[in-house]
């Protein structure tokens, strides 16, 4: 049977992977958004695991809402991405440093 621990380990690794992808990513924003999606996925999986092992549906309900929000977020993220591309003609992360002090 799947044990709670092993499941959590998998989601932990997934979460850390996505985090590193987010931080060390040197190419473009798309990968950035994907990593965010991955992170959300890891969190949802966690919820599912706990709702399964604690036999409480609340976890799944919560995942349901997270999916909604995640979808919304992805949409707006891509819209912003398009705007950045239209404005800066690039979405390469290292070139987007207008925030520089």
């Amino acid at each position: 049977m799947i044990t709670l621990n092993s499941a959590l380990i998998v989601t932990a690794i997934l979460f850390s992977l996505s985090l590193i992808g987010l931080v060390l990513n040197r190419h473009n924003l798309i990968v950035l958004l994907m990593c965010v999606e991955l992170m959300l996925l890891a969190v949802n999986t966690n919820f599912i695991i706990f709702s399964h092992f604690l036999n409480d549906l609340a976890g799944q309900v919560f995942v349901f809402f997270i999916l909604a929000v995640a979808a919304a977020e992805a949409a707006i993220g891509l819209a912003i991405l398009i705007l950045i591309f239209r404005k800066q003609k690039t979405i390469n992360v290292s070139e987007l440093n207008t925030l520089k002090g």
Partner: protein
Amino acid sequence: MTLLQFIFYVFSALMLLSAVGTIISRNPVHGALFLVVCFVASAGIWLMLQAEFLGLVLVLVYVGAVMTLFLFVVMMLNLDKLPSRAGFKKYWPFGILILLLLVGLMIYVVAPSHLSLASNAIAIPHPADYSNVQALGAVIYTQYVYAFEIAAVILLVAIIAAISLAFHAFHQDTKRQNISKQVQTTAAERLRLVKNMGKE
């Protein structure tokens, strides 16, 4: 090692590898496709955890909608291959270090002793006729109906926001149809009667 565990390990390995793939891949399309694989694998895991409805919803919503959105954007911006992964290579060891640190921390934090669970909680198998969707529906439309509405509103807001941000109808250099002007033409402007059709 039961078949279930084996399948679980296969799916989680698939998920992790595809996750690494999305991060490492140079071509955004590859990244997106790897992400799809990752979603499907996690849907598999969810099904194994008896969250059938959400597993399928995951596939439908994410793989169907979000990934197509990604690919659509990638195609639209026709991003060519990324110059190099130099950056990534340079920080490779540093990344692993943080990875291990994070994982170690999370495992330590989430260890059962902290969550006042029995050392290794065992899931209670559901009776055969148990339907996840029915159970979920009962809960959503009773306790969480208010949150459900809000989720709907959020999605609506997302749609409007995405359109208002990205839609630049009034840009000068794009050719557009002006429906209302097209409609106001008269027959004379449009129709030209030619006497001897087909003789020349």
